[in-house]
């Protein structure tokens, strides 16, 4: 997919180009993990860069696939790590967006069976969506034959899959029972497809994408994904704020989520190298003959968003 001036070229953003691109933007959307911070440590210079952007009158929003935190928790983390003050309405997490989606997609009174975190439950609660779970499966006995006898809740019309450290075969069974009971009448929704969540030192834990894949495989159907790169999460931002895609920059560290979403939605995309994706991967996509891989190439890159500071000096 080409940008306005032909295929995206992933140019380093610096000097005059940086001033021009930042000057032309009204809104910046930031992914968080790997962009603003890694774990509990802010990326050096990131808070200062966002401070300057805010002072220059830019609207800053935060768009994250992490379904383990509520919007309130994100604003608290932003504050704790020294970023400019943000309100929950500036934060678009996949948990919040999943709750919004279900509130609009479920018939009144219908509930969701949730494989996910307390934060996901809290967002559903706040959106007024009845739900079962999360937490460990409430098992009526030790064997699958026992679980198959537990009654199903008649109100459930959706299965929602988010990051779930209590994921188990028993919960997968329950999810499959609900999906089979109603067929197409039961929604299957996933917060995101991230396959791995990197930790310090090169290790990683399995991401929500694995759990979504398990449910999809057992049920032989595809989930509706709320988070990046799906348009849905961007549409949530656009419904809250008056966004002009031509004057909006998406800043992220993952090509297959942040950059792909930004490109698909007609935004300017900026890759930062403080997280998951590398320039070698970008090059691989650029050199592939495959048009869909070109959608993973950003307009620009920086080593870190701290590199934007010189362009923001008064």
């Amino acid at each position: 997919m080409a940008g306005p001036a032909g295929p995206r070229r992933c140019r380093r953003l610096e000097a005059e180009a940086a001033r021009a691109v930042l000057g032309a933007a009204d809104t910046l959307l930031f992914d968080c993990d790997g962009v603003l911070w890694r774990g509990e440590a802010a990326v050096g210079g990131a808070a200062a860069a966002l401070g300057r952007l805010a002072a220059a009158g830019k609207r800053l929003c935060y768009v994250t696939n992490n379904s383990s935190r509520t919007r309130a928790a994100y604003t608290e983390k932003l504050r704790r790590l020294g970023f400019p003050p943000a309100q929950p309405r500036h934060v678009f997490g996949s948990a919040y967006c999943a709750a919004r989606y279900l509130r609009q997609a479920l018939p009144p009174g219908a509930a969701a069976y949730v494989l996910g975190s307390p934060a996901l439950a809290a967002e559903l609660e706040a959106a007024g969506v009845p739900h079962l779970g999360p937490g460990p499966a409430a098992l009526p006995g030790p064997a699958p034959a026992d679980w198959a006898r537990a009654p199903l809740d008649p109100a459930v019309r959706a299965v929602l899959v988010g990051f779930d450290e209590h994921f188990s075969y028993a919960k997968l069974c329950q999810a499959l029972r609900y999906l089979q009971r109603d067929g197409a009448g039961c929604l299957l929704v996933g917060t995101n497809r991230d396959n791995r969540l990197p930790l310090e030192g090169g290790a990683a834990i399995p991401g929500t994408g694995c759990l979504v894949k398990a449910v999809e495989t057992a049920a032989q159907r595809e989930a509706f994904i709320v988070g990046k790169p799906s348009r849905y999460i961007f549409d949530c931002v656009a419904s809250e704020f008056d966004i002009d895609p031509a004057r909006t920059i998406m800043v992220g560290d993952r090509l297959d989520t942040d950059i792909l979403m930004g490109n698909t939605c007609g935004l300017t995309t900026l890759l930062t190298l403080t997280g998951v994706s590398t320039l070698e991967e970008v090059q691989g996509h650029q050199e592939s003959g495959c048009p869909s891989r070109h959608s993973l190439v950003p307009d620009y890159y920086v080593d870190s968003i701290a590199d934007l500071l010189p362009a923001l000096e008064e």
Partner: protein
Amino acid sequence: MASCRRLSGAGLREVLGPAQGLLFDCDGVLWAGERAVPGAPELLERLRRSGKAAFFVSNNSRRSVAELERRFGLLGFGGVRAEHIFSSALCSALFLRQRLLGDGGAGGRVFVLGGEGLRGELRDAGLRLQGDGAAAAAEPVRAVLVGYDDQFTFAKLAQACVYLRDPRCLLVATDPDPWHPLSDGRRTPGTGSLTAAVETASGRRAVVVGKPNTYMFDCIMERFGIDPSRTLMVGDRLETDILFGKNCGLSTILTLTGVSRLEEAQAYMASDSAAAKDLVPNYYVDSIADLIPGLDE
């Protein structure tokens, strides 16, 4: 391309007459839930009397061969011998023994996502399992084996990924089945759904031992040296049993007492895709009891 013809009358004798042996899937073919398919025990008895061999090829990785042998007895199938039973649990053990303990093998332990039936087969094959005792704790894990695991958890998934960071650690799955039917028509998640989670998390593709891959046929050949051109594959699942038969060069018979419906076979036949055509059986029967008239008295 196979033509999915109903097997009956004269056709039965034409097809069964020359056959030296039949490979049977078990669930949905010989039994459904806790009951033998009516006429199935008699069919096996008649095969024996006709001098034709019967082998059993099951993707079900829950049961050890010994448990399966007992199950045959309990459900009224007389005289089925353990050495004719090939489960994905057994064949996964043989596969891992070959890769880890055979010539050029590096040894090492196996991290198993699966139950006691599977673990027992691995131990019987001489493999050492992660979690089986501290003695060889220093020995690295050289294979992750995903089987039917009703105790699967996020923690075990994360642990598997730690082992799979070593590119020398194999990722093996007992079978690809995404779900299995329960006796009341509902479904339970299969090994395939758990394997999908491990593959997604680790970025690796699993080597799948079970049908439709041909390794289980290699195990049968190794033990019995059968002639594929004189052997029939009988199964209830197009995507595993029938494709397995095609992959091994066997003529295939779909039985309708299990998972796949005749309409699905016909849809594959009508499809433009070459891959779909490999899922079309040569023949079908309503139940394997329908094969009895094709055998000598």
